[in-house]
C-alpha cells in the first residue's frame, strides 16, 4: 500500500516530463496525457477510500499507510510519507481540481502547451507532497517545490501584469517559507537538546518539550509561513494580484489548492506541534480570521474587475477557516475541512466561469459586462448556482461548512463568532452584486457570445454536482475526517497537560 503514496506524487512528476517530451507540436496528445495521468492518480487515491487505519504496531493512529525510507541520514532527514483521512480528502481534491484545470485550459492555453502542462502537473505533485509528507524537511521541500512551477504558470501564461504578480507571489511565499524553515530547524534542534537525536520526523517531534518563550517564537515561524499562504489579513496582499493575473487554471489551483496547504499546515503542524503557544495565540488568530472575513468581503464589494472580486472572496472564505482552526473543537474543525472542500469547488468554479467569460468577451470589467443572461443562459444558470454556493445558501456545502464553523467558534469564543456571522451578510451582498452586474440589467454593449460548450459544461457540472451532493449529504467527508481530527485534538490535549520547563 505504502508504495502507492510514492506513485501518487511520482505519476504527475513523470507525466510532466512526458508532456515536455511530447512537445508543443502535439497539444492534443499533451492534454490527453495529463488527463490520463491524473485519472490514474485518482484511481490510486481512491483505493484508500474507506480503508481501515493501520494497527498501532504499524504506526497506528488514524494513518492508513505510512512509508519511511532513509534519505539524508547525516542530518536526520528521512523520506517519510503517510496518508490519513484528512490527507486523503485533500489529495482527492487536488487531483479533482487538477483534472478540471486541465479541462478548463483546453482552449484557453494554446501556446507552449507542453511546458504549461509540465508546470501544472508539477504543481499538483508538489501540493500532494505537502499533504502527504510526514518529515518536516520533506514537507518544506514540497512546500517550496510547488512555488517555482506556479511562478512560471503566472509569469508566462498570465494576464497583463503577470510579471509583477508572479514576482510578488514568489517573494511573499518564499520569504514566509524561510521563516518557517528556521522554525522547523529550531524545533528539530530543540528536540535534539531534549533527546539527543536530530530528526525531522513528525511523530518524533510531536510533544517535544520546549520552553514557553521559545515555543511561541517557533510557533510564530510556522504561523507566518502558513498564514501568508492561507492568506490571513494582513499577509494577503499577494493574493489579489496573483489570482487576477494568473491564467484560469492557475487561479483554480491557487484558490482551490495552494491556499488549502496553508490551512492544512496549521491543522497538521502549527497547532499540534506547539499546543501551548497556539492556545496563547488563539485570540489573535481568531480575530485575524474575523478581520479576513469582513475585510475580504468589503474589498470584494469594491472591485470592478470580476476576477479580482472573486479573488477577494477567497480572503473572506479562508477567514472562516482560520477562525475555525483556532476554535479547535470538533464542530469547528469538521467545518474547516468542509469549508476547504467547499471553497475549492465553488471558488474554483467561479474562476473557471470568469475565465470562460473573459475568453469570449476579452474583458473582466464589471462596467463593460451586464445583461448576459439573455445571451448565454447556461452560463448564467451555472453562475447563479456558484454564486449561491459562495454566499452560503442552505443545500450547498458552503452553508454546512460555515454553519459548523460558526457554531464551533461560538462555543469557544462568542465575540469573534458574532462578528464573523456578519460576514455571511456581506457575502450575500457581493454575491448578488456579481449576479446583478454581470447577468442582469441591460446588455448595453450588445454582447453576442457563444454559450458554454460541452467540455465546459462537464467541468462546471462536476463541480456543481459535488457542491450539491456534499451540501445535502456531507457525512462521507465528515466520516473520513473525524478520526483524524479527534486524534489531533487528543494529541493537543495530552501535550497541553505536559509539565513545561
Amino acid at each position, binding site marked *: 500500500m505504502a508504495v502507492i503514496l510514492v506513485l501518487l506524487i511520482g505519476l504527475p512528476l513523470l507525466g510532466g516530463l512526458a508532456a515536455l517530451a511530447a512537445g508543443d507540436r502535439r497539444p492534443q496528445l499533451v492534454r490527453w496525457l495529463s488527463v490520463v495521468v491524473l485519472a490514474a492518480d485518482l484511481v490510486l487515491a481512491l483505493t484508500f477510500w474507506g480503508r481501515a487505519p493501520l494497527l498501532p504496531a504499524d504506526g497506528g493512529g488514524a494513518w492508513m499507510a505510512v512509508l519511511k525510507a532513509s*534519505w*539524508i*541520514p*547525516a*542530518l536526520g532527514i528521512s523520506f517519510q510519507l503517510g496518508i490519513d483521512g484528512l490527507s486523503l480528502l485533500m489529495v482527492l481534491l487536488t487531483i479533482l481540481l487538477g483534472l478540471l484545470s486541465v479541462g478548463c485550459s483546453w482552449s484557453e492555453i494554446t501556446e507552449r502547451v507542453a511546458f504549461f502542462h509540465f508546470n501544472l502537473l508539477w504543481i499538483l505533485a508538489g501540493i500532494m507532497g505537502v499533504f502527504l509528507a510526514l518529515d518536516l*524537511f520533506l514537507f*518544506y*521541500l514540497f512546500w*517550496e*517545490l510547488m*512555488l*517555482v512551477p506556479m*511562478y*512560471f504558470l503566472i*509569469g*508566462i501564461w498570465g494576464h497583463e501584469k503577470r*510579471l509583477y504578480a*508572479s*514576482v510578488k507571489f*514568489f*517573494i511573499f511565499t*518564499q*520569504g514566509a517559507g*524561510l*521563516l518557517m*524553515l*528556521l522554525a522547523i*530547524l*529550531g524545533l*528539530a*534542534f530543540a528536540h*535534539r537538546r531534549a533527546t539527543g537525536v536530530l530528526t525531522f520526523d513528525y511523530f518524533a517531534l510531536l510533544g517535544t518539550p520546549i520552553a514557553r518563550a521559545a515555543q511561541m517564537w517557533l510557533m510564530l515561524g510556522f504561523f507566518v509561513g502558513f498564514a501568508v499562504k492561507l492568506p490571513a489579513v494582513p499577509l494577503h496582499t499577494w493574493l489579489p494580484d496573483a489570482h487576477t493575473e494568473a491564467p484560469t487554471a492557475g487561479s483554480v489551483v491557487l484558490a482551490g489548492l495552494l491556499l488549502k496547504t496553508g490551512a492544512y499546515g496549521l491543522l497538521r503542524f502549527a497547532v499540534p506541534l506547539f499546543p501551548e503557544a497556539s492556545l496563547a495565540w488563539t485570540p489573535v488568530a481568531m480575530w485575524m480570521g474575523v478581520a479576513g472575513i469582513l475585510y475580504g468581503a468589503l474589498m470584494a464589494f469594491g472591485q470592478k474587475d470580476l476576477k479580482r472580486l472573486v479573488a477577494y472572496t477567497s480572503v473572506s472564505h479562508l477567514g472562516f477557516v482560520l477562525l475555525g482552526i483556532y476554535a479547535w473543537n470538533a464542530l469547528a474543525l469538521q467545518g474547516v475541512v468542509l469549508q476547504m472542500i467547499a471553497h475549492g469547488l465553488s471558488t474554483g468554479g467561479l474562476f473557471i466561469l470568469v475565465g470562460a467569460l473573459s475568453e469570449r468577451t476579452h474583458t473582466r470589467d464589471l462596467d463593460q459586462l451586464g445583461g448576459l443572461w439573455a445571451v448565454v443562459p447556461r452560463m448564467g444558470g451555472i453562475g447563479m448556482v456558484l454564486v449561491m454556493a459562495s454566499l452560503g445558501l442552505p443545500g450547498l456545502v458552503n452553508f454546512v461548512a460555515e454553519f459548523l464553523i460558526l457554531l464551533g467558534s461560538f462555543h469557544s469564543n462568542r465575540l469573534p463568532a458574532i462578528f464573523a456571522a456578519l460576514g455571511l451578510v456581506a457575502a450575500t451582498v457581493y454575491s448578488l452584486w456579481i449576479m446583478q452586474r454581470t447577468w442582469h440589467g441591460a446588455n448595453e454593449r450588445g454582447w453576442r457570445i457563444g454559450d458554454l460548450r460541452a467540455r465546459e459544461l462537464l467541468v462546471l457540472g462536476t463541480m456543481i454536482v459535488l457542491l450539491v451532493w456534499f451540501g445535502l449529504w456531507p457525512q462521507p467527508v465528515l466520516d473520513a475526517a473525524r478520526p483524524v481530527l479527534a486524534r489531533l485534538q487528543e494529541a493537543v490535549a495530552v501535550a497541553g497537560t505536559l509539565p513545561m520547563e
Partner: protein
Amino acid sequence: MNGSDVAALAPLLALTCGALLTLLAVAVHRAHGVALGGALVTLVAAAVCLPVAAAHPGPVGFLLVSDALALYFQGLIVASGLATVLLAHRYLAGRAEQREEFYILVLLAALGAGVLAAARHFASFFLGLETLSVGLYGLIGYLRDERRAIEAGLKYLVLAAAASAFLLFGMALVYAVLGTLDLDRMADALAGAHGDGLLLAAGMGLVLVGIGFKLALVPFHMWTPDVYVGAPAPVTAFVATASKGAVFAVLLRFYHGLSVPGLPGLFTLLTLIALASMLAGNLLALLQHNVKRILAYSSIAHLGYALTALLAGGAAGYAAVGFYLAAYTVTILGAFGVVTVLSGSDREAEDLQDFRGLFWRRPWLAAVMTGCLLSLAGIPVTAGFVAKYQVLAAGVGASVWLLVLVLAVSSAIGLYYYLRIVVAMLSPVPDAALETDPPAVAGPGPAAGLALLVLALVLLWLGVFPAPLQSLAALAAAGLPGLLGQP
C-alpha cells in the same frame, strides 16, 4: 622529502609539472588544441592524484599539510579549473589573438590556490596567494585590446598588491608578538598568551584585511563588480570559485586554529563582516542591470552565508562551509558558463536585455541558467538549497540567531534580483533585438556544452542526493585538530 611526501603532494606536483610541460609544448608547437589538451590532461591527472594523496595524510615539511580539508578544497579547485578551460575554449577562439597562455595561467592559478588550501604556515599562505594572484592578473586582463579588461586587470593588480602589503605587515606584527609563523605553534603561543595584546590584534586584523579582500567581503568588496564585469566571463567564473574557495580554506584553518585558544574579538569582528556582507551584497545587487554585476554582488552575499556557517563553528558548521562552497562553485560556474556561451565575438552577453526571451530562443541554456539562479536563491531540488539549509541548520544548532535571521531575510531580498533575470528570460523576444542581432545559431560548442551539462546535472544531483558530498565535507571538517568525534 620521502616517498610518502611526494604522494601527499601529488596533486600539486601534477599541476606544476603539467603547467611546465604545457608551456614547453606550446613553445614547440603553438596551437590552441595543444594548450587545451595539456590543461585538460593536467587537471585530470591532478584529480586522479587526489585519492593517492588521501592515502598519505599528514603534514608535509613545515609549510604544507595534506589532510582531508586540503584535498577537499583542492578537488573543488581542480573541478573549477576544468570547467573554466572547457568553457573558455570556444570563447577564446572567437575573442583572443593569443589563446595558449590562457590555459597555462589557469594551471598556475590553480596551483597557487591548491597551495593555499594546504597551507599551514604564513609563508606558504603568502606564496600560494601570490602565485594565485599573479596568474589572475594575467587572466583578468587577458583580452588586451579591450579597455575594460585592462582596467579590471589593473584595478585588481593595484588593490591585490595593497592587500598583500597589509597581509605581510600583519604577518610581521604577529611574528613580532608570537615569534612564529606556524599555525599550530601560533595557537600554542596564544594559549600561553603574553606579550603585547594590541600589537597582536593589529597584526591579526591586518591579516584579516588581506583575506577579506580576496573573499570580497564587505567592506573590502569594492573591486568585485568592476573586476567581474571587466574580466572575460570564464575568468570571472574562476575568480569567483577557485580563488575564493582556496582563500576560504585558509580562513577556515586559521579561524579554527586560533579560535580554540580564543582570540578576543575575532568572533565579533567576523560576525559584523558577515552581517554587512549579506545585507550589502543583496541590497546593492537590487540596483544593478548588468548580469555580471548582479552575480558579483550576489557573490558577496554568498560569502557572507559561508562565513555564517564558519561562525556557527564545530564539525557541523565547518562541514556546512565545505558543502556550501562546493554548491556555490558548481552554481556560479554554471551561471558564468551560460554567460560565456551567450557572449558573441565582439562583446559579452551581460546586459539584462541580452537575456530577454532566452527561454524561447535557447530553451536549454535558459533552463540551465534558471537552475543556477534558483540554486543561488536556495530553492529546493538544487544544490544551493541543501547548502543553505545546512548553513541554517548549523547556525540554529549553534544558536547564532542574529546571523541566521539576517541570512533568511537577506535571502528573501535576494530572490528579487534572481527572479529579475528569470523574468527577463521569460519575456517576449524584443523585436528590435531580432533585427540587429545575428540569429544565434552557434551552439555552445562541444567542450562548453559538456561542461554545462555536467554542471547542471551535478546541481540537481546535489539537490536530491546530497549525502555523498555531505559525508566528504564532514570528513574534511573532521580532519581539523580537535574535531574528531564531535557531533
